[in-house]
């Protein structure tokens, strides 16, 4: 059953968990380490809440195996873009150009994927993202240009280059590629069917766990495993190796790093290029696995959602994983019925109320009251409406990020020298 944690694989490494929907970073300082039992209890209670709401409202889709599988699938491009942002920003380079690098990735996957098969598509998409990153690195690291400006230009360039190339490669229909051959998927025989039969029973809690099991054992594209594995790998490289320490020191105090003999330029280059490759890979997955086709404008801001997920996760791998999963889930809900989205309001009510009770237990009365009032208002909203506008799910990632930023900005900690240009030997 340890597999069950795979989708949120990062959570056991970093700090926040999916429960952060409501209680973002507040828990973070108090819980010293979210290992083992605590995490299991948190996840289990989350599933219990979802299960309770599912039974009360009859909205089966809020945690059906299909929804969870879709959420994981949609979380992958977001997570890869976010991981790209993490690499780059940990080395002190803000990367707004993730979106453009992702666009390059989708195109690469469409072009090479239709020519030589999906795996080559993924490879070329990844490399093209890296090419975009090289441009960003030259501008920001070598020339010290404002990093936001360069990112904006990369986004512009990524769009223009792919549109131009599309017109060259697919002259008849330049806005999309032919179908990309599908990638192989993994199904755990026996277990997945057994999980499905349990999930269909509709039992409290048990069926919901079975839905999760079904989602991660049935028809899982292999790219998902690669992407999920990249989270702990990144954590290990950045936080457990000498190279990672040096890279992060470039993002915290580049001149101190320089005085210790670290080649700051080199580390920044590596970080930015890895960042672009990850974003490119995310784009390639988007095209190859989720759509099976390259389409112009396909990324639709996923690069920015990835950036949001990274900030939501406080520049940490675990938080980033949780954020991507949450945002992937909201995107998956967009495709579901209005009733299911509506039922989510009840989930929010319960989570906020529980958080309020927790605050009361900690004797912080005023925030607790605020939480209860919010819960009451959301309940009122739930009780007086039948459905929610489609756009609510659409804006959730952005609003969630704004909320986290505004409510927990004191606890968020980005790398100290993030976004600041570095010129060798120019310490003052």
């Amino acid at each position, binding site marked *: 059953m340890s597999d069950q944690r795979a989708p949120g694989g990062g959570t056991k490494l970093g700090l926040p968990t999916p429960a952060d929907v409501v209680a973002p970073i507040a828990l973070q300082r108090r819980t010293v380490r979210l290992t083992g039992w605590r995490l299991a209890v948190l996840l289990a209670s989350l599933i219990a809440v979802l299960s309770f709401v599912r039974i009360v409202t009859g909205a089966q889709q809020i945690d059906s195996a299909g929804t969870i599988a879709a959420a994981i699938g949609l979380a992958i491009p977001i997570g890869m873009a976010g991981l790209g942002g993490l690499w780059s920003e940990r080395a002190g380079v803000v990367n*707004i150009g993730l979106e453009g690098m992702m666009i390059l990735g989708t195109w690469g996957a469409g072009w090479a994927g239709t020519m030589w098969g999906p795996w080559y598509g993924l490879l070329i998409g990844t490399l093209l993202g890296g090419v975009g990153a090289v441009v960003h690195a030259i501008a920001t690291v070598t020339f*010290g*240009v404002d990093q936001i400006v360069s990112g*904006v230009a990369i986004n512009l360039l990524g769009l223009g*280059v792919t549109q131009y190339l599309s017109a060259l490669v697919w002259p008849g229909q330049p806005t999309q590629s032919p179908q990309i051959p599908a990638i192989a998927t993994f199904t755990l025989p026996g277990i997945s069917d057994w999980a499905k039969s349990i999930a269909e029973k509709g039992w409290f809690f048990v069926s919901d766990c079975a839905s999760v099991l079904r989602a991660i054992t049935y028809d899982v594209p292999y790219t998902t495993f690669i992407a999920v594995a990249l989270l702990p790998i990144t954590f290990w490289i950045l936080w457990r190796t000498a190279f990672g320490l040096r890279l992060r020191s470039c993002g915290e105090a580049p001149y101190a790093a320089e005085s210790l003999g670290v080649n700051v330029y080199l580390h920044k280059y590596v970080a930015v290029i890895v960042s672009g490759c990850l974003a490119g890979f995310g784009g390639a997955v988007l095209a190859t696995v989720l759509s099976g086709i390259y389409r112009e404008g396909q990324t639709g801001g996923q690069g920015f959602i990835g950036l949001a997920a990274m900030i939501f996760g406080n520049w940490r791998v675990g938080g980033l994983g949780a954020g991507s999963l949450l945002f992937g889930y909201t995107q998956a809900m967009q495709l579901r019925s209005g009733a299911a989205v509506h039922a989510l309001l009840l989930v929010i009510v319960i989570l906020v109320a529980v958080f309020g009770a927790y605050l009361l237990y900690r004797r912080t009365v005023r925030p607790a009251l605020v939480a209860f009032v919010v819960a009451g208002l959301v309940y009122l909203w739930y009780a007086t409406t039948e459905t929610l506008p489609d756009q609510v799910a*659409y804006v959730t990632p952005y609003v969630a990020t704004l909320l986290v930023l505004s409510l927990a900005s004191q606890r968020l900690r980005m790398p100290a020298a993030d976004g600041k240009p570095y010129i060798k030997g120019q310490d003052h």
Partner: protein
Amino acid sequence: VRRFLLALAAPVLALAFAVLVTSVILIASGHPPMQVYKQMWDYGTQPDSLVLTLNLATTYYIAAVAVAIGFKMNLFNIGVDGQYRLAALFAAFVGGKVNLPPILHVGLILVVAMAVGAMWAGVAALLKTRRGVSEVISTIMLNYVATGIIAYLLAPDRFAELIEGSNNIGTPPIGPSGQVPGFDVIPGASSPVYGLIVLAGVVGFGFWFLLGRTRFGFDLRASGLSSTAATASGVDSKRMILYVMLLSGAVAGLLGMPQLLGASYTYNLDFPAGLGFTGIAIALLGRNSPIGIIFGSLLWAFLDVSRQILDLEGVSKEIVTIMQGITVLSVVIAYEVVRRYGIRAQQREVGRQLAADEAALEGVSA
């Protein structure tokens, strides 16, 4: 004179570089570059194209000024995009619902647009001053939230109605009293230039006046150059951030107006999007100066209009997007290189001066 030349060198160098790269790409894809440029020039200088260029440049100019106001204080208003779309939607809706005497009607629409734009920028400003949230991130997020809000509001029974004979939906059309007639300034053109080109002029003049002739503008530039020094001299940096963001948002709100009141008269699904990002590019190109931005927006608009011919000639018109992207990137790199060169030249100058003084002193004591 030398400083002026240095300032001019950067954009010229960058443009030359962009043209060079574009030519290489064109050659690589089998098109003779000179011929392509000539076609663009010939098409772009026809009367109708000139009108389009001026109209587009009007919009781009306002967009770039909105961005530049923030830039002058090192505030990055990426949210111009969301601000103008939201503002245009509300302005179009209000304008379509009421009927007032001509001047008042237009005035009301403009005020609504500015208010909505400022309000949306104000959210980012408050997040920054009250909670310390970076405006870069918050405005990016707010852009998407604005997209969501617009999608929600631009629906039948809310702000919009079905446009007859199409499956497009838009706000109720603004009546004649709210429309701004255009000018027939280009002989031989079939359509007029937006009347609100005057608005762009006013915005540009206001920007220049504010920056160079008022105390607020001085504080603003001081905060941009060194926020600590500005604070030390008594500038309330938080209040400056709030005012500048509100101002930037208000100007952003205006940027959809030439199009809305001069051509489309309704906000529908086809209303141009993404102009905020164009504004960022042009502000960089024009170096945030009211005059520089004029050239930037004219160039950008000309490229956007003249590229329309390329598809007919078998060249993908996206080549121009590539060219624009490279221009922006190389222009900022060029500015940075020139700036560093300038600093080094200054240091050398100072060094020489000091050495000379010292030599003179020694001469005296000897």
